[in-house]
């Protein structure tokens, strides 16, 4: 309605010259006054006013360019997780015993000043007997063109379907270590792609656990109030007043050594999720406390709805978007937690691979100094965590589209 008319102040204000009757300096519409113009809407406005909450969240999120970019990155990462066997040039455990601690091979696309298909340079290898160090030097004459959509190391897709198709493979008889190799001659790039499977899903599963716990416990506390509320509040205070990492360490130290890596993985996600639910529970509780005083809630109570239905059907949907936003912001903490735990050797155990497991190879300062490419997984960690943070931030802003 602000686009209608500018209502002029009373003429002859304190500054005006009372004698002069010059035309007013501002614009006055000459169109006849239409009292219903306020209620009439353009089609665009109409669309805006009848849009559902989710549609508005989506519109608002779309305008947040950083969040959209982060969302695209995340989408690509999770897509990569589902097809990592295809993306990785090597298998997760394929060893190249001739290339232990080989440095990264940069991709070249120019050969003698001409644009050619991407290729890498093969290595000349010799053992420095004085320092007992393996020395790899790229040989400009060993040009190894990279193959695309090719057959390479055999794998079992998702552990079931055998296959050997890869997005990129080394030239026949050549190598393709885009990020170098580790102490067993395994390609770091491939291992990073496989490690994403654990590192990126740990956060999702962990958040699912804490969402469930947070909604259930926070919901009960917020809806019933009274003693239930006081007790859960105290319990949450106890959990929150604990330094997370030592508690995670203690809990993961009790996972039996005899467990299989897969079970340990689920144990770790459970541990990560079990401690982080308090923040969500707190948010749910305070929202519910406010919302249960609303009229629609009273109406539902009077119509005889049971608490579970009121919480689930009437109260929770009012702030689902907030919940999703805060859940998104919790994932990076879990990714970092898993990385830290695995780095210390308390998290996911080999042969399972995660970014933290890969980084635990770089625990030693000498390793970092001699083979700095072993730190590469950390860029993946930072990228994922940053993307989640930016995306969650945008989501949080968009979660309240009426604001």
């Amino acid at each position, binding site marked *: 309605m602000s686009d209608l008319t500018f209502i002029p102040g009373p003429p002859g204000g304190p500054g005006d010259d009372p004698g002069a009757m010059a035309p007013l300096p501002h614009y006055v519409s000459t169109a006849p006054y239409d009292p219903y113009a306020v209620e009439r809407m353009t089609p665009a406005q109409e669309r805006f006013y009848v849009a559902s909450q989710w549609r508005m969240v989506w519109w608002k999120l779309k305008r947040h360019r950083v969040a959209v970019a982060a969302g695209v990155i995340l989408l690509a990462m999770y897509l990569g997780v589902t097809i990592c066997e295809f993306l990785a040039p090597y298998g997760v455990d394929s060893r190249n015993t001739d290339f232990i601690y080989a440095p990264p091979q940069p991709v070249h696309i120019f050969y003698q000043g001409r644009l050619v298909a991407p290729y890498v340079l093969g290595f000349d290898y010799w053992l420095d007997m004085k320092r007992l160090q393996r020395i790899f030097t790229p040989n400009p004459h060993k040009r190894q063109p990279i193959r695309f959509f090719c057959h390479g190391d055999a794998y079992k897709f998702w552990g079931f379907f055998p296959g050997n198709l890869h997005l990129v493979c080394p030239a026949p008889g050549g190598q393709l270590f885009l990020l170098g190799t580790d102490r067993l001659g395994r390609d770091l790039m491939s291992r990073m792609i496989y490690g994403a499977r654990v590192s990126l899903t740990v956060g999702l599963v962990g958040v699912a656990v804490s969402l469930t716990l947070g909604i259930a416990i926070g919901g009960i506390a917020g809806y019933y109030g009274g003693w239930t509320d*006081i007790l859960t509040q*105290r*319990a949450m*205070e*106890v959990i*929150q*007043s*604990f*330094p*997370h*990492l*030592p*508690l995670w*360490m*203690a*809990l993961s*130290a*009790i996972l*039996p050594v005899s467990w299989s890596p897969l079970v340990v993985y689920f144990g770790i996600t459970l541990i990560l999720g079990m401690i982080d639910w308090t923040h969500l529970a707190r948010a749910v509780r305070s929202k519910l406390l406010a919302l249960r005083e609303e009229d629609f809630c009273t109406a539902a109570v009077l119509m005889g709805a049971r608490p579970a239905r009121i919480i689930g059907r009437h109260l929770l949907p009012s702030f689902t978007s907030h919940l999703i936003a805060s859940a998104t912001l919790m994932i*990076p903490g879990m990714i*970092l937690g898993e*990385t*830290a735990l695995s*780095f*210390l050797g*308390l998290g996911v155990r080999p042969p399972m691979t995660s970014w933290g497991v890969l*980084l635990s190879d*770089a*625990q030693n*300062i000498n390793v*970092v*100094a001699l083979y*700095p490419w072993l*730190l590469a997984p*950390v860029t993946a*960690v*930072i990228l994922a*965590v*940053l993307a989640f*943070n*930016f995306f969650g931030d945008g989501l949080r802003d968009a979660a309240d589209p009426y604001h």
Partner: protein
Amino acid sequence: MLNYIIHRILIMIPTLVAISIVIFTIINLPPGNYFTTYIAELQGSGEKADLAKIEFLENEYGFDRPLWQQYLYWVGGLLHGDMGYSFSYDMPVDKVVGDRMLLTAVVSVTTIIFTYLVAFPIGIYSATHQYSISDYILTFLGFLGLATPSFLLALVLLYFANVYLGISIGGLMDPKYLGRSWSWDKVLSLMAHIWIPVLVIGSAGTAAMIRRLRANLLDELQKQYVVTARAKGLHPVRALFKYPLRMALNPFISDIGSLLPQVISGTAIVSVVMSLPTTGPMLLSSLQSQDMYLAGSFLMFMAFLTVIGVFVSDLALALLDPRIRLQAGRRQ
């Protein structure tokens, strides 16, 4: 105010009791105890264990008694300042940990002070210069600080200090002061070494704090009283510091509660990487070898530190904000 303090202290007691129960349960969850692992390990390497001594210790510490009795024994000891016996070090726990706990506390407190000193001016600057280039840069740096695992930052710093500065920066003080009693020189040496772990541990907390202060201050600066003050020609600096900043400070202080666990967590992992003589590495090894009194007392100490920190922050908040200290007496 006195009412409020008493109220808070009364809440602290059940909290600590609950924490101790949780800790005791956790360290007793794995099957067996230190001795079963120890004997198995010795037998694995073909050595013979001193069964008589082990039996004596098992009796002494009541490993054959029911769990609740063991718990009472442990907690009773803690109340007397006796933290139990470390089996892997063959010494009383307080002798083993001695300086370590003190150093953990020193590092944590220094880190928090560092966090405040850095976050405060940057947060204010970033809020008053919203959407400027420097604000974007600072925001990005803040996010980066949040996203980088602290242990990695430690490794990289160690590496660069080693390569470019040629100094070794592991440890918290010059090796010659290790095991000596505290003296002025030792404190100075500590001061010279402490800044790297503080920087590493504080980075994440500082970043979070900057973002929170910025958000709070921005909220406050949009309010009408600030606009009025500006419109009436109040000097911008005064219009910032007199009211909005004080309002934005509230979460700054209440954040100690969440900052402290974070800092202690950071200390735990960074100290493993940088081989600092704080609690981290010892906690790790004691957890792995099921040295239950050592692990339990460590965890208890960390939780205690946190609870005290939250208590102090609540008191400071109550001093700052009359609504809190007045409400507390009425509620419940």
